[in-house]
């Protein structure tokens, strides 16, 4: 009879693994998907009037993108040309310069072009924390002030086609 013990132990483990398959261990609800954007009001780069706030995002009718970036972030350089392309296609991109110096941000924009509809500075990175940004660049898809999708890392053609467009189509009805 004791020859069956290994088999019994294995069966117990297999059942546990089967149950475990339906659970997602990395499903820790940290991202604010389908939640309203956290409340904020950011100044423009250089600390003056003319940034934007959560109210501005909520007031938007269509789908907009919020892009966190910085001039010190190499992947942001990689991402930049595609943001210009998105602007050309008519997407409204709100830019947030994350923990960046205003003259650096302005230099970055002046040198490479401005893909942003509006640009604000998050010098202390507090708004980024509220958004749950891990690191720049990160891009959020927002409709009527509700976060629909978040893309971490530089957004590229392939990511946009595969992930963002289906989401835009599904929420933009």
């Amino acid at each position, binding site marked *: 009879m004791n*020859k069956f013990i290994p*088999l019994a132990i*294995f069966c117990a483990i297999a059942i546990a693994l089967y149950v*475990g*398959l339906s*659970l997602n261990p990395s499903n820790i609800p940290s991202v604010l998907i389908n939640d309203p954007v956290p409340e904020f009001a950011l100044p423009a780069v250089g600390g003056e009037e003319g940034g934007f706030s959560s109210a501005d995002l909520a007031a938007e009718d269509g789908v907009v993108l919020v892009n966190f970036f910085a001039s010190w972030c190499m992947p942001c350089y990689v991402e930049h040309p595609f943001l210009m392309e998105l602007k050309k296609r008519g997407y409204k991109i709100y830019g947030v310069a994350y*923990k960046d110096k205003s003259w650096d941000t302005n230099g970055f924009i002046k040198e490479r072009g401005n893909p942003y509809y509006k640009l604000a500075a998050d010098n202390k990175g507090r708004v980024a924390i509220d958004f749950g940004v891990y690191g720049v660049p990160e891009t959020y898809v927002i409709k009527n002030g509700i976060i629909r999708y978040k893309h971490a890392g530089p957004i590229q053609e392939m990511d946009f086609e595969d992930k963002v467009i289906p989401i835009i189509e599904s929420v933009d009805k």
Partner: protein
Amino acid sequence: MIVEAGHFALILACFLAIIQGTLPLYGAMRNRGRLMALSAPAAYGQFFFVSISFGALIYAFIVSDFSVANVARNSHTLKPMLYKIAAAWGNHEGSILFWAFILSFYGAAVAYFGRKLPRTFYVRVLGIQALVGVGFYLFLLLTSNPFERLFPLPMEGNGLNPLLQDPGLAFHPPLLYMGYVGLSVTFSFAVGALIEGRVDAAWARWVRPWTLLAWCFLTSGITLGSWWAYYELGWGGWWFWDPVENASFMPWLVATGLLHSAIVVEKRDTLKAWTILLAIIAFSFSLLGTFIVRSGVLTSVHAFATDPERGVFILLFLFIVIGGSLLLFALRADKLQPGGLFAPISRESMLVVNNLLLSVAALVVLFGTLYPLLRDALTGDKITVGPPFFNLAFGFLMIPLLLVMGLGPSTNWKRADLIGLTSRLKFVFAAAVVASLAHFYIAGGGDMMAAVWLGLGLWVFLSTFYEWAERVKLFKSDAMKRILRQPRASVGMSLGHLGMGIVVIGMAGSAFWGTEDQSIMTYGDSQEIGGYEVRFNSTDGVSGPNYSAVRASFDVRKNGREITTLEPEARTYFAPPMPTTEAAIYSTFMGDLFVVIGEANNKAYDQWAVRLYYKPLQIWLWGGVAIMVIGGLISLSDRRFRLGAVTRRQKDE
């Protein structure tokens, strides 16, 4: 075209495996020579076609063929060639194809080297090997096709996780897989023997070289991974009890047990059922490891492709392979009558204790690894089981294991004389205890466990050396002749145990005597650590093929004398974007100086977060493992293990 050929070759290999796993097995049952004759050619053919298939995938990676989805997801034109090739097995689909490739390689190797095995047994072993292969081929073809095409064509690939772009990691998976899959041979031999209903000394002699080979690969693979974690992750640690590390460690523990219990089967014709069970469990742990990594049931830094659908497939496969073989074991184990009897104090008993401790250790690791999953399934709580649990439970089991390890080789078979044993080893034991107490005294107390581990390491090292010296009569005339005439298997044993002793001492050193320091350093600052004076010179921007980096420069002095300049880097990779640290390490026999550079102060560009570690005896750890593996390889070259060699009775002493 080449890609399609690879896909097609995989389908052919699958059909060959189905043939090899059915007709010859039927032939063996009915004693039909013609059907049995199919198995060897099928095994060679399988290897041939899977090689073509795997070659096609590597080719797609080399030429950066982004029309293949797998290449587009995991490669990038900017990547150095080594990592383009390594990316072929650095992803889910590719790694499973790699598994299948090695499986078919071992199948062909068994078909070739096992020609002298009894006919029906040979056919059964190959048949089981093929059936395991069928599972992997179907898994590839049905759920994880590495040759899937992509449309529209992307211009550039996604790149490989930069942490994995490292020479150490390019070779870590191949070695590990050679080990994992090598255990499939042991498994096939065990199941083959259960079907035959016969296990004897000859069986143990056939199985041991394969187990030893797998063990050597597994040991090197695990250590390479651990070494990689040590210098790449930049925490100064080398073992984290991460689920995926555990997944490779559990088969290692069982395989180590199996190596020892197979000796008992070979020499004393007993412990047969237990050995068969270990052979099944060792491979089961390999498969379970694959399941854990691939299915996403556990989170881990290593799990690079997770998909519940695949998980269901692997679980079903596990159920058939492991459940089936354990059922067969339960039904047939009674047929395996034990032969030789032994007294409570004997080499056999020592090996039984070794086996029990290693198996319990594997169970403890399994429990710790799966516990978060069980909790989540039963109560919904999210928890993690960390190093404190493992270090305590595992360490507790290692103490008796190391004690027995020192005694075992000096103990006689059948019945040993306890008084003689203790009187021979008492000086060795006393030396280890004295050294350990001396350390405790010199260190002025400190952690008592440091002294315990140091003592245990010394005990294993010294008692192994003592046993060897006694065996070769080191201090009598013509000792050299006797040293050279030792059977290679026993030389291998001595080296393996000596290496383990060194590893334990190295672990004690790096875990308990290490010092670390984290601080903000400005250019020109100096810091004292481990007897070194480390001066922060400057930082510089550098760029590599697919990353940009900040490279810092540190001058290292000891007693006022310039020794070396260390240049750790903080890298940012482009594709995918990710920061990594490249630690700079100055290794000496007595310890490693380890420097990691963190982030700059936002306001002052000459102020950086710097972490310094001093890890005493770190190199002993790697060196000890190297000695263990060399011991394994020497043992492997013993002529008794060469299959087909005339079996001759060996005297035990």
